[in-house]
């Protein structure tokens, strides 16, 4: 055998070693968090975070140990995908990808983007796949979908009297599926080759646990475990939409109590149960209904991630979000708890924010003024509690208003996890435009005029018909970054900076045909985001690198908030919007 061929074959052998991408992703997360923590102002914060992440690391280092459902704590939850005008008819999670069916639009896959892969839609997907093959149903028929080729073929026909829904793989040739007739819903086993059908049990939406030869399904509002061999039935709980983890250790389902739906998880052996959402009450009315309606909680590959669809109950034709809930045996640290809380406020996941508070107020989030970033800068451990101090940055859409609030979060341990007991605003410094068209810095109730509209050099001003719009003060308090909104049509925006020491103005950018919405600064003070909309109502985002004088432009993107030096942004498409994390230093974008 020639040397060249030996070398080629050695490389082929190398490529046959399949890299564990799940490990790669999980482990990476721990280092991304650690690296980010290093940038914080105080050196002790990374130490604390690193300590907790090290525990998380140790955990990710091993095969997921089985712990009781009640021991799993929520470490994060975020609604990362918002299906604006569309209706999600079904979704499933396979090998790091979310497959979503949108009514009348087709089947999409969500990985780094939401991409349409099939014109057909689905009423339900199988919970798991066999090789590359996924099952889905549409209008009573069952289809086989090849995730690699994205081709589908019909494998089972419904009849005028009976429809199939909720398919589940049993083995290569057999499936469990719910057969819906006028009279009842039955779980049947079907040989997809011979089409031979066997009745198994009354009920719907079966998940199959191969190692225990059990089916978990719903019947008349009960979640039931059915032993296929013995026929024995055990009721798990009241609830709907059951699903099990791939390892068969946990069951997820939606349970309603006094009009409030929540997502629950249970051990397969039924020893413990755990509620993983905190549905807040509806606003503005004395309603006995929760703010959210949850559906189809399904598990990710790692048995520590849940995906759940949620819709707001108080909005007609409310948009559907997919929320990711991350669970861990280790509870979040005090700092992580505060970070999660502030993040939840900024993306308006009231249910998650509320779950982190000991005595949550009725209303948590508001449209304006709103938070656009935060920095945690101090923590003190007391005997019974921990105090975490953080600066939170606020703005008011399209108005010359910026606020830096310093909060003291007091946290205490409750059920082995930290909850926020009190939130106290220690100080608030505001930057605003007064009625004399002056920019004022208001500290401890005392205003200091920094400059006025008349002070701005005429060369920066195209028209007299202007007003101050969104602004901010840099963290070192040396500069004010502000915008001037042209009021003529077509409108334009001028972005300027003012040096408080030298009193010099500097032009950062002219944004033609725009209406300014907000400006925000990252934790390091190097990057400024500018959100504006064009006269054609396109959403534009510009990130300015103040250090290098560079700008990066995005279209149909909103900034949501700065998480340290990473920007959480929302990409808006015709059918949906979704969150990403953007690193302005590397230009890389990852799913959030």
């Amino acid at each position: 055998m020639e040397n060249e061929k030996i070398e080629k074959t050695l490389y082929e052998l190398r490529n046959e070693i399949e890299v564990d991408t799940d490990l790669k992703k999980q482990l990476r997360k721990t280092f991304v968090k650690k690296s980010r923590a290093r940038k914080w102002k105080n050196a002790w914060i990374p130490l604390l975070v690193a300590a907790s992440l090290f525990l998380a690391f140790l955990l990710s280092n091993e095969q997921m140990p089985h712990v009781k459902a009640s021991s799993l704590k929520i470490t994060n939850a975020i609604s990362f995908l918002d299906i604006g005008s569309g209706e999600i008819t079904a979704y499933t999670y396979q090998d790091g990808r979310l497959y979503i069916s949108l009514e009348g639009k087709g089947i999409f896959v969500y990985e780094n983007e939401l991409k349409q892969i099939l014109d057909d839609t689905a009423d339900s997907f199988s919970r798991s796949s066999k090789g590359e093959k996924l099952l889905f149903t549409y209008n009573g028929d069952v289809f086989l979908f090849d995730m690699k080729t994205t081709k589908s073929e019909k494998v089972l026909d419904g009849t005028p009297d009976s429809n199939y829904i909720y398919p589940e793989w049993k083995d290569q040739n057999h499936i469990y599926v719910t057969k819906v007739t006028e009279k009842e819903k039955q779980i049947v086993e079907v040989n997809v080759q011979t089409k031979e059908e066997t009745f198994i049990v009354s009920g719907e939406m079966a998940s199959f646990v191969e190692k225990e030869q059990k089916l978990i399904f719903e019947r008349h509002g009960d979640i039931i475990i059915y032993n296929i061999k013995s026929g024995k039935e055990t009721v798990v709980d009241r609830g709907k939409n059951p699903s099990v983890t791939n390892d068969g250790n946990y069951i997820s389902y939606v349970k309603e109590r006094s009009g409030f739906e929540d997502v629950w998880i249970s051990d397969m052996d039924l020893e413990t149960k755990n509620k993983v959402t905190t549905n807040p009450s509806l606003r503005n009315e004395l309603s006995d209904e929760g703010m959210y309606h949850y559906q189809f909680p399904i598990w990710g590959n790692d048995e520590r991630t849940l995906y759940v669809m949620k819709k707001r109950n108080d909005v007609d034709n409310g948009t559907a979000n997919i929320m990711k809930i991350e669970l861990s045996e280790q509870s979040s640290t005090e700092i992580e708890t505060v970070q999660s809380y502030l993040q939840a406020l900024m993306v308006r996941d009231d249910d998650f924010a509320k779950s982190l508070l000991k005595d949550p107020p009725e209303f948590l989030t508001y449209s304006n003024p709103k938070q656009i970033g935060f920095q945690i800068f101090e923590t003190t451990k007391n005997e019974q509690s921990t105090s975490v101090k953080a600066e939170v940055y606020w703005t008011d859409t399209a108005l010359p208003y910026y606020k830096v609030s310093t909060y003291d979060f007091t946290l205490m341990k409750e059920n082995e996890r930290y909850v926020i007991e009190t939130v106290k605003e220690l100080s608030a410094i505001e930057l605003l435009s007064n009625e004399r068209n002056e920019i004022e810095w208001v500290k401890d109730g005392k205003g200091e005029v920094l400059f006025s509209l008349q002070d701005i050099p005429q060369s920066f001003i195209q028209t007299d018909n202007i007003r101050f719009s969104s602004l901010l003060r840099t963290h070192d308090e040396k500069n004010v970054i502000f915008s001037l909104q042209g009021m003529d049509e077509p409108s334009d925006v001028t972005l300027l900076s003012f040096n408080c020491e030298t009193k010099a103005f500097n032009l950062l950018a002219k944004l033609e045909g725009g209406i300014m919405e907000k400006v925000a600064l990252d934790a390091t003070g190097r990057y400024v985001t500018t959100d504006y909309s064009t006269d054609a109502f396109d959403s534009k985002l510009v990130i300015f690198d103040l250090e290098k004088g560079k700008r990066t432009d995005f279209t149909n993107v909103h900034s949501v908030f700065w998480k340290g030096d990473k920007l959480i942004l929302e990409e808006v498409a015709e059918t949906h919007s979704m969150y990403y994390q953007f690193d302005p230093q590397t230009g890389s974008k990852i799913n959030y």
Partner: protein
Amino acid sequence: MDVKFVDLYDAYFDDIYRYVYVKTSNKWETEDLVSEVFRKAFENFSLLEGHQNDKAWLFTIARNTVIDYYRKNKSVLVGDNFEQYLSPLPFEDPFDGKTEKECLQRSLKHLSDGDLEITELRYFADLKFKEMAIILKKEEGSLRVKSNRITKKLGVLVKKCLGG
């Protein structure tokens, strides 16, 4: 050196994984060891500054971690485990239908430890001779010659395996 840890991680995770896997032939041990390698690298990341080659630095950690692991677990022998990755069929038992690839797999276990290490670093870890020289503390030129000889030796072994 303006390199962030995650950049290093992203660039070399696959190479580290495959290198460790070919050493252990066991998914779970690979997961443990790969995690251990990156944890050590993260903790010592500040030491990378001033090091001439970041991949060589990372692989030095990986190699030492694997050696340490087997030192601590003396009952687990690399050779024994390596057989799991290779086919259990004895090399001296030629049979019809054997592919060159299968024969090459079998031939690898006939290499000396030193030769196997060079092959693994070169082909499974995808390292350059320059990087291997740093890790193994040997001359780049002599490694190049040595690697060439090993490849020839493997060619002969494969031929023998194929019954030629």
